[in-house]
């Protein structure tokens, strides 16, 4: 068990180093969500005056969850891309020949994705604080948001890993990039679901990402509450469960291909 944990740690550390060493990996995770946060906040800031919009300290506070979600999802895609590159370059084949359990290969990558998700949450919280946002949940709320950032990236990382394992091609995983925006646009990440237009509103009600958005947004906008946390955890369980099943299936397909 300890050896497995050590292998997961080593693989995770390698992935993190790679991400921070090459700006082209880290850039998409932070730059575009930050620009989007800036435009959304300034462009749609007047929305807080709309009837039915929840009482919030500011629109930036409301949008922080969207930034964190977007960056976490992109971190998941980058993690999947890294795994696919390892497959393309033959590194995964060498790991398959090593005396470690096969799921460790995926778990190592997911450990790195978890750290990147937390890093993204810290980044957006820092931006939020710099521009006047407040976290109503206090220090505990900040910790919850950071943990949710990491868990969101990990849950989606499972799906990205499954695609990487099944396709073995980095460009296929990178094709998920636009999908990230589709998933977010049809959730309550950017706007309260009740105020969205149809059919986005109906889809947002059933989209598990809306539950995750509530889990991240709750501590920032309303303070810590059991219902928001449970909503967030439920959303993560749905997405993470799907990711787990898909990546187990992808790993089996990869082993068969190898």
């Amino acid at each position, binding site marked *: 068990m300890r050896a497995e944990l050590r292998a997961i740690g080593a693989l995770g550390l390698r992935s993190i180093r790679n991400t921070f060493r090459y700006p082209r990996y880290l850039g998409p995770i932070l730059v*575009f969500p930050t620009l989007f946060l*800036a*435009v959304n906040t*300034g*462009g749609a800031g*007047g929305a807080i005056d709309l009837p039915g919009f929840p009482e919030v300290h500011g629109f930036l506070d409301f949008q922080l969850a969207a930034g964190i979600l977007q960056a976490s999802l992109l971190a998941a895609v980058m993690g999947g891309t890294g795994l696919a590159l390892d497959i393309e370059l033959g590194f995964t084949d060498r790991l398959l020949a090593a005396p470690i359990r096969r799921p460790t290969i995926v778990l190592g990558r997911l450990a790195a994705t978890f750290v990147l998700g937390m890093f993204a949450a810290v980044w957006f919280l820092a931006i939020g604080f710099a521009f006047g946002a407040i976290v109503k949940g206090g220090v505990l709320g900040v910790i919850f948001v950071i943990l949710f950032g990491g868990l969101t990236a990990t849950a989606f990382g499972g799906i990205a890993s499954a695609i990487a394992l099944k396709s073995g091609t980095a460009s296929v995983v990178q094709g998920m990039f636009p999908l990230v925006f589709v998933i977010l*646009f049809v959730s309550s990440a950017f706007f309260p679901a009740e*105020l*969205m237009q149809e059919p986005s509103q109906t889809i947002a009600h059933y989209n598990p990402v809306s539950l995750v958005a509530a889990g991240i947004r709750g501590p920032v906008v309303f303070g810590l509450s059991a219902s928001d946390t449970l909503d967030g955890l439920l959303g993560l369980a749905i997405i993470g469960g799907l990711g787990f099943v898909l990546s187990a299936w992808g790993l089996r397909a990869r082993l068969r291909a190898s």
Partner: protein
Amino acid sequence: MSALALELSTIGVLMRRALNEILRVPGAAIPGILAPSLFMLGLTGAFGALTELTGFSTESYISFILPVSLMQAAGFAGAATGVNTVRDIELGWFDRLYLAPTPRPALLAGIVLSAGFRALLPMTAVLTIGLLLGAQWPGVSGLLIAVLLALTFSAVSASWTVGLALRFRTQAAAPLMQASMFMAVLFTTSYAPLELLTGWLQTVASINPVTQVVEGVRQGFVEGVSFTGTWPALVVLAVLLGLTFAFALRGLAKTGR
């Protein structure tokens, strides 16, 4: 053949080369269509209720955002020209262009005008999707003005990104090209009229010249076409095209030295 005819023929050949790229690798056009279309549909679904704010110039958010997506399609097509130029530089094809007995402005004009070809496909797709989903028909004159302004903006974008390509000479500069277009178009009245923007974005949008172009493209979709709504966009585009073309030309001159 006169010198002018020779230059025009060079421009035509370079434009045809860009057209060949589109026809031979049609899959490469998909991201350029997908990104602005998703943006238009996603923002309409999410932020559509903004039209209920007092002072919003239309009741249809898709009519308001469709011109922004047209500008994005044009801007990204221009940026793709810059990215392809870097690829040509890295592969050595650009060095062969330097050896050609053609004036540099003609070479640059061919590359920059080819961005218009690239922009036509995503712009048509975005426009069709938007109109099918209920965006207001801008009328023939509104449509022509919108297309003319957006295509000229793609030439501005191409000049700017080719200038960057000639300075950086590496594909690592591609995110800079795309991000600069992203900011140029979105740091305007893209989401809401100027009076309804908040904080820093209101200040930036009021001094960002691209705001005039967005408003010029938008006029037919939300109100009606007028000379006062068109000429500021034309002046801004003429100045921007002059400046960015000079920027790219300077890069071309430096590279050839």
